């Protein structure tokens, strides 16, 4: 689409060169802190505190990781987060795709009503306390349901899926209805396989969203055994209270605070790595799924 850089005029080269430089700096600003955290997580706590990070392998240790992996709360939080994220993304994407299907039919009776019904909730809601009282009244506090059910319907995703369904050629539906397929059959056998890219993106979305959130868990799950990873991280990283088990065997207060600092780095790496590793494999879906959806939505 664009001409080769060397063939451009001097002026264009300068402008684009400056632009690329800026973008490069931005990319560096993203990478450097991440690499810093990774290296720091492998440091010997004493060296880390006195000299900062060092590239000398002799100064490295796996101490931080040993303690993080021994920590029961992190392990439990991890499992809880997986449970919540998997069930939430399944439920939410299922319900969302279901609702998007009828809405993608232009001749649906009551289409306008249903559209308005869902869209209003994007702009107006009851707010924190009324919602909390409702969940409380339904006896959902301290259960997984409080986390996965109330936000299962995602209006934005309904709009994306609806637009995606509309871009599927109508002949497919005609053909399957000539063969006598009901809506359910058509949806399941024909539409779903065709729409794999958008489904993959929506699942990734909801999964990441749930994995990274902490607010609902903070207000609805009081039992510490139910807490997802993010709440465990919060107490270690932000409230500065590592689980006593992680640092109990250390005698002096100074040692303890050194170790607590190291633990932050290893905790960040352990908790973020799964998503960061997974994500490049999903990148190919961004192109086909998100992009089609976002342009038309």
């Amino acid at each position, binding site marked *: 689409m664009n001409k080769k850089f060397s063939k451009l005029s001097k002026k264009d080269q300068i402008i684009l060169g400056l632009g690329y430089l800026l*973008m490069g700096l931005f990319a560096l600003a993203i990478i450097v802190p991440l690499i810093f955290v990774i290296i720091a997580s492998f440091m010997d706590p004493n060296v880390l505190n006195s000299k900062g990070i060092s590239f000398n392998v002799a100064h490295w240790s796996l101490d931080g990781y040993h303690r993080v992996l021994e920590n029961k709360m992190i392990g439990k939080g991890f499992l809880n987060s997986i449970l919540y994220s998997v069930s939430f993304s399944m439920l939410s994407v299922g319900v969302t795709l279901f609702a998007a299907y009828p809405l993608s039919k232009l001749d649906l009776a009551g289409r306008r009503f249903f559209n308005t019904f869902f869209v209003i*909730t994007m702009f107006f809601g009851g707010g924190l306390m009324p919602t909390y009282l409702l969940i409380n009244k339904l006896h959902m506090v301290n259960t997984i349901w409080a986390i996965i059910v109330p936000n299962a319907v995602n209006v934005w995703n309904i709009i994306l899926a609806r637009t995606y369904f509309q871009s599927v050629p109508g002949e497919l539906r005609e053909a399957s209805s000539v063969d006598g397929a009901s809506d359910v059959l058509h949806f399941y056998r024909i539409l779903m396989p065709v729409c794999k890219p958008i489904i993959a993106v929506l699942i990734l979305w909801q999964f990441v969203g749930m994995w990274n959130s902490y607010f609902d868990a903070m207000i609805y799950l009081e039992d510490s055994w139910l807490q997802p990873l993010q709440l465990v991280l919060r107490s270690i990283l932000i409230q500065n209270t590592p689980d006593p088990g992680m640092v109990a065997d250390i005698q002096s207060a100074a040692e303890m605070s050194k170790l607590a600092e190291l633990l932050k780095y290893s905790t*960040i790496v352990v908790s973020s790595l799964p998503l960061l590793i997974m994500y490049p494999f999903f*990148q190919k879906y961004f192109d086909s799924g998100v992009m089609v959806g976002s342009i038309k939505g």
Partner: protein
Amino acid sequence: MEKRKKRSKNSSSLMYIKKNWQLYVVFMMPAFLLTLVFKYLPIGGILMAFKAYNPRLGIWGSNWVGVKNFSRFISSPDFAGYLLNTLKLSIYGLLWGFPVPVILALLLNRINSKKVKKNIQLVLYAPNFISVIVLCGMVFIFLSPIGPVNKILGTSINFMTMPEAFRSIYIASGIWQGAGWASIMYTAALSNASQELTEAAIIDGADVLRQIRHVDIPAIKSIIVIQFILQAGNIMSLGFEKAYALQTSMNIPASEIIPTYVYKLGLQLGDYSFSTAVGLFNSVINVILLLMVNGIVKQFNEGEGL
């Protein structure tokens, strides 16, 4: 005549529903019921804002107090501060943060090598997959008195306790995390933009800036407008999660925004009615802002708004 038309329309709707009952019962029902219960029922709970809520009497049984909760908030000495914090944080955030993804997308679009482009995107999107808590944890580590930033500066400033630093920290970390990901939409739209137009512009001797101004920007203009309206409409519903996580007892003068205040009032202090009133006040301002921005944009954008 009119009536008959209406009746025939109604009966044809009924026929449609009868014929396609699966669409309603199987497909629409779950989302409809969930929305009705978890989104619409709480809207009724807003009544609480006009009552003195008493858990024993319930929302309906509690006594009416009119707009007392609202006047209590508006006349409280904290009111102006919290409102200004909320407005400043999001308006500055919008002004600084909104252009970055657009610029990133315009630059990405100018990269010829597909491989280079992919790799840069891979880096730019990565922070989006880091959680708010980890992001804030990193902010705390880097800005702590013994953290790397102070080591580089040769100082020992505790940035997280400085109210005057809070906004910059909040906004900069937001751009760090979200700008790359937000550019994805513009990038997609640009890659669909007409290549012939660009080629024609090049033949006409347009330089890069002109190509961007007359070909690239018009191609993504409608998305820019919609994004701007949506984000401006969210000014008051600023992310609770990050503001709360970055809050320390020392930076409260800048970091207490209405959403964090609502949370503390309601769930920590148990002042349900007052909390609901403050929350409602917040959403009303939000809707007003949304309508205002939509109106202004329409004026400038040939009648095109949301």
